[in-house]
């Protein structure tokens, strides 16, 4: 009996039959349920699930980042080669850089232990430690990159340079920034005024307009995509040479109009929680309604406006459907559309590392914004979801 060929014949067949993402997830779930039932404190099992989930996410991200620093030939033949440019022990420069990096890592860990030992530490000292950790991390990363660079390796940034220039990711990012910032400014201005009028002023038909905006949140964007396209195709202002198609400003206007219902709905709660007495006092002192809005209520509603701004910014930064339809000119494409066309046009058919560099360029700004504003994002999400 030939064990080898038997197993070779049997195993792949089995693997193919059950190799299906659905079944993998199903097994994972069954395992999780067993773990949860088995563990009385429920804590170990939950750690296991979460570590598995987060571990996968980190592993995938690292795969993308590390591969994006190598050449495409290495990626196909031996993917681990992307790392060896940083871990060349025979070269004194790279070895020194590795030692420096290890020292930085040790410093970060020591600071983390300090922080964990003293949970009641005063905020200034805590922030000093955070700053120290950040500095050490940056220094370690820089040492690693500098070591590779001084050693003559330039693979690690070549893909990024190519994605940024040849694949035009730089331009796309600039467009995304302009469109997102412009729309968010316009949205905040319009919706703050509208919400103030809808909550603090009295006029006939107020509730009707509010209901109109709330009901409009149910309209899927797909419903208005085609009619809007057919309508805006013909709108062309000759004297200004302005058209809604292929124009950043046109997209800003469309995004603003689309985001208004949700933003007004979100802000209504904030404005309602502000006391009306302020407006009355201002009116007695002879303050006009516009000044009451701009100098009293607008600053008071700042937390709500910040939340709305963050949500709209991220939504518009990631928006894909309308940008895909209304923009064909490569000079004004946004990041998601640009990345999609990078895949479609097969500019990098066999060049995964360059595509990975594009993915990293797409992910990094979102990740930074997310890390910095996480508290506000969570507060806004809970406010919009739990109370809405």
């Amino acid at each position: 009996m030939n064990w080898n060929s038997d197993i070779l014949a049997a195993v792949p067949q089995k693997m193919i039959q059950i190799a299906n993402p659905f079944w993998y997830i199903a097994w994972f779930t069954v395992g999780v349920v067993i773990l949860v039932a088995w563990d009385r404190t429920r804590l170990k099992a939950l750690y296991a699930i979460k570590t598995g989930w987060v571990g996968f996410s980190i592993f995938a991200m690292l795969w993308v980042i590390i591969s994006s620093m190598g050449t495409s030939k290495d990626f196909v033949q031996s993917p681990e080669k992307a790392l060896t440019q940083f871990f060349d022990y025979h070269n004194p420069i790279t070895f020194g850089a590795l030692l420096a990096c290890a020292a930085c890592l040790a410093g970060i860990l020591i600071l983390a232990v300090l922080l964990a030992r003293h949970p009641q530490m005063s905020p200034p000292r805590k922030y000093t430690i955070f700053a120290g950790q950040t500095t050490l991390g940056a220094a370690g990363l820089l040492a690693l990159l500098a070591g590779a660079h001084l050693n003559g390796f330039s693979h690690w940034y070549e893909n990024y340079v190519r994605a940024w220039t040849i694949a035009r990711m730089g331009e796309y990012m600039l467009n995304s920034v302009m469109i997102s910032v412009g729309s968010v400014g316009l949205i905040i201005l319009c919706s703050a005024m509208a919400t103030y009028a809808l909550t603090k002023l009295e006029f006939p038909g107020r509730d009707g307009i509010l209901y109109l905006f709330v009901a409009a949140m149910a309209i899927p964007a797909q419903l208005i995509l085609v009619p809007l396209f057919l309508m805006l195709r013909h709108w062309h202002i000759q004297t200004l040479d302005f058209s809604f198609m292929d124009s950043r400003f046109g997209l800003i206007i469309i995004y603003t109009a689309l985001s208004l219902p949700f933003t007004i709905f979100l802000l209504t709660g904030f404005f309602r929680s502000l006391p009306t007495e302020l407006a009355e006092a201002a009116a007695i002192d002879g303050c006009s309604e516009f000044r009451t809005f701009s100098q009293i209520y607008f600053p008071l509603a700042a937390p709500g406006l910040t939340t709305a701004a963050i949500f709209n910014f991220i939504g518009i930064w990631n928006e894909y459907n309308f940008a895909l339809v209304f923009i064909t000119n490569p000079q004004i494409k946004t990041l998601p559309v640009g990345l999609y066309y990078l895949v479609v046009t097969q500019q990098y058919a066999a060049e995964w590392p360059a595509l990975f560099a594009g993915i990293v360029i797409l992910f990094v700004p979102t990740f930074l914004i997310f890390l910095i504003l996480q508290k506000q994002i969570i507060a806004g999400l809970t406010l919009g979801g739990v109370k809405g």
Partner: protein
Amino acid sequence: MIVRGKHAKIRQALIALAMLAPSLLLFGVFVGYPAVEAFRISLYDWTGFSPQADWVGLKHFRGMFGPTVWAMGVPFGLALLAALVIGGLFGRSRSAPPDPRLRRRLNPKWAWAPTLAVLSAWLVWWLYGTNDGDDFFRWCVRNNFRLMFVGGIFQFVFAFLFAAGLSMPKFRAAKFYRTMIFFPSFVSAVGVAILWQRVCDARYGLANGVIEGAANAVSHVISYVHPIHLAVAPIEWLGSDNMFNSIIAAGIWSGVGSQMILLVAAIQRIPPTYYEAARVDGANERHVFSHITIPMIREVILITLTLWVIGALKVFGLVQAMAIQLDEKTSVVSVRQYELAFSNRDNIYQMGYATAMAVVLLVLIVVFALGLRLLRSEDELEF
């Protein structure tokens, strides 16, 4: 603001109008008017570029569902009528209860339940029981539903487990886990789609790489005892059979975070006194879970589910960017609509038919959102 005097009232109304004007104008021109126009366009045959749009009436809707479904409209319509009547009787019984004892049992919101039941029976029969009409479109709706149910169940289970862990006071490094699980919800759907497309690639992808590595490790260990090498055939994660499952997996990965955050916030809002009181009364963990935690976060669970259902029906970027080949097994309604209206594969733009699909999508979204609203509890808990 309280105003006295007729002139002051008119003045305030004018000021309010001035402050509302930009929003109303933008909304009316770029959302309101197109939304109404969509219903009109769905009644025309129009390539979008020919000057003439031909009035075809309900042809698109007829062709979409096929003659059998419309013929069955007679019995289903009768059932619908009966459901409406029954529901109406149900609903009326509260305003004028014949018997005071019935007041608690009959809730007017359930008046809509039979109607929704008949509508969903019709829908299910069309999706899985018939064979005519636009086959491609039916596959698209099926895929939407598959994403909604399969993805929704797994996503909710994981979101709930993660939320349970994060809201435990003993859980260490909660912030790190929260960030890492929540982050994928905020990345562009296109980014997620392309990342997963590459992870699932059969030749160079991460998933097959990990499986191959595991097989190599196992055979290395076994080879100390017996000379053997386990060869694993690369799995076609992006083959036409597995493609949509991979898309669902990507959707789960990116969607768990926001659901988890909502659930965590809801769990943490429950006052600890409730738990303490229950413990004093001798309730065990299971009692606390089923009698305090679940009822207290019931509303949020329903909001979470509603958001997911609407999101799964509207999904576009994830599918459009991730599918290698947009055939009937991998397409969804909004992607099909985009293909018909803007992507000239056959050099024919079918604006009218694409808009008719969007109208059906709107109906589906409204029906599902209203259906989930029925499950909301009557008595609002204030705490």
